[in-house]
């Protein structure tokens, strides 16, 4: 039951904190992104300010914030119930108009989710390392404390690879396992893949709206075609595998969910004439990138490439500097993460951690 609350109810109510005209999918995505972004902040405070690697402290702090947000969001959700009713009516209407497409879309998504939720990937690759990390964190109660210790020791962080220390995705997975009190392997191999896939398809739906906003049937076709194409690993390689085989990896979340949202928000901003809403969307672009930096260190490179390419083409196309400005806003979290990564890589924080000594 708590899994349902954490994965489905919380993002919805947290997402309800924002604009009134958001669709259900958008609200869910905003909630999930905000949750991850706040987790990122809590993690950085724990590691770099408090100089602690106690998973318990992180769990308590983050849960309190999450509950507070959910409580406020719940109040807002109740105010929005009329709007939800209207949205549900629109959804039912769209489904009635596109029965076949709806069925095909849901069957494809459900099949892919169930296949991974019930089955297990035959190729393991990096799953071994990542699952081990999460197991270690939950069982020892330490964030990245896997050097054979069972005691709290912030100095250990100095020996952990910077790519992990700067990206807390696996800590987030450990948090989920700890708060739900289910064995981490069950969380990682059964529930999380379904959650991530749901997020990925929500993100695709969201992107579809930005690309093909005029037609619900086109959006459904867009999602269906994406679902079918993802099946072909022969052509789409890693992107397909990340989505369908190992969705719980940080890089999978970055490529299947965050990148999709990044581009969707960018397109939305470019099509936005209202400067007030444009600023709001730019903030969300920033948050998406910031949440992305929680997933994997490779976003330091991947996001600027994506944003740079978009900015360049849009800049030339629109003969304006606005696209470049938006690209810079999205790139800020990546630069910040890169700075932390570099500082950490060159052991410039060692003295800071040493002073926390145990």
């Amino acid at each position: 039951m708590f899994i349902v609350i954490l994965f489905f109810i919380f993002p919805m109510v947290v997402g309800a904190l924002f604009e009134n005209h958001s669709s259900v999918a958008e609200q869910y995505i905003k909630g999930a992104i905000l949750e991850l972004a706040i987790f990122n902040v809590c993690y950085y405070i724990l590691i770099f300010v408090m100089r602690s690697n106690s998973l318990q402290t992180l769990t308590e702090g983050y849960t309190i914030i999450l509950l507070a947000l959910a409580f406020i969001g719940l109040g807002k959700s109740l105010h929005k119930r009329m709007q939800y009713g209207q949205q549900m009516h629109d959804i039912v209407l769209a489904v009635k108009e596109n029965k076949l497409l709806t069925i095909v879309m849901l069957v494809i998504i459900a099949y892919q989710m169930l296949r991974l939720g019930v089955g297990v990937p035959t190729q393991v690759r990096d799953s071994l390392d990542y699952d081990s990390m999460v197991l270690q964190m939950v069982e020892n109660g330490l964030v990245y404390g896997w050097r054979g210790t069972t005691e709290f020791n912030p100095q250990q962080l100095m020996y952990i690879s910077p790519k992990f220390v700067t990206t807390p995705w696996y800590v987030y997975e450990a948090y989920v396992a700890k708060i739900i009190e289910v064995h981490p392997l069950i969380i990682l191999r059964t529930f999380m893949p379904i959650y991530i896939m749901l997020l990925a398809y929500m993100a695709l739906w969201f992107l579809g709206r930005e690309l093909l906003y005029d037609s619900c049937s086109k959006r459904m076709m867009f999602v269906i075609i994406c679902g079918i194409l993802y099946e072909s690993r022969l052509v789409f390689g890693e992107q397909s595998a990340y989505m369908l085989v190992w969705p719980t990896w940080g890089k999978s979340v970055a490529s299947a969910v965050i990148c999709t949202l990044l581009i969707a928000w960018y397109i939305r901003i470019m099509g936005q004439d209202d400067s007030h809403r444009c600023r709001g969307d730019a903030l969300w672009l920033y948050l998406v990138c910031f949440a992305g930096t929680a997933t994997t260190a490779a976003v330091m490179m991947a996001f600027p490439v994506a944003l740079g390419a978009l900015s360049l083409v849009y800049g030339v196309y629109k003969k304006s500097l606005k696209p470049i400005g938006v690209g810079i806003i999205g790139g800020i979290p990546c630069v910040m993460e890169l700075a932390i990564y570099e500082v950490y890589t060159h052991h410039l924080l060692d003295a800071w951690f040493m002073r926390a000594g145990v």
Partner: protein
Amino acid sequence: MIDEMIKVHGIFWVHAGWFLLYVVALFYVLHCWEKIRKQVKPIAVAMIVVLLIMYNPVVIYFIKQQLFGQGTIEYTRVGWGLLVVPMVAYLGIELIDWNKKKAWNVLILMGVVLLVSVKNNTYHEMPENSYKISNEAIEIVGAMNATLPDANGYYSLIYFCPVTENMVGEMTVYDKIFSGITAYSSHFVTYCMDISYLNEMQNMYKYAIAQKGDAEELFATRGYVKIATTEHCDVYWYQE
């Protein structure tokens, strides 16, 4: 050059699918450029441009070989921002819009992709338990757990892939919990220790797993004691 790139680990490990995509994109652009320029949103243009750059063999070669050197960067990471799948889907829908008759061609192509994919899609199997690791691995973990001399130790074990004849990984076993090892998949038990490798490394590894009956004598002379036997494996412990 292409052959070299395909061989280089970390570019695109799924054979030549990326190259096919590049050729298709190039073909698409050459035939539809006027329509793309006039009718499609800038995002489509951006996606096509990025696709043609990212999947361009010359660019890949330059980045991989000239800028970073072989094996030092996983080029696919840069490609995440490309969103190839949504891009192809979007351009497909635009194509259907331009010419409804051609939509059938797209649908047929999708059908072929689906059929090929389903035929080749053997990436999932049914698990033996809710942890989704093999019962045999759990049995091995239990046997190791029983022999641990103290709770705060830090032990290692390696496994070897008999197909590639390489050490495919090293697992570290922590404390009495053995969480490190429990994370390993059902394929874990299909690996066995490399005997020659063991000769050099024996003192570093507390535990070893070998194919059942394969290395009993060798392990005995090296100071390893058999602590368990499962359906496919013998489990050894190095006794100092």
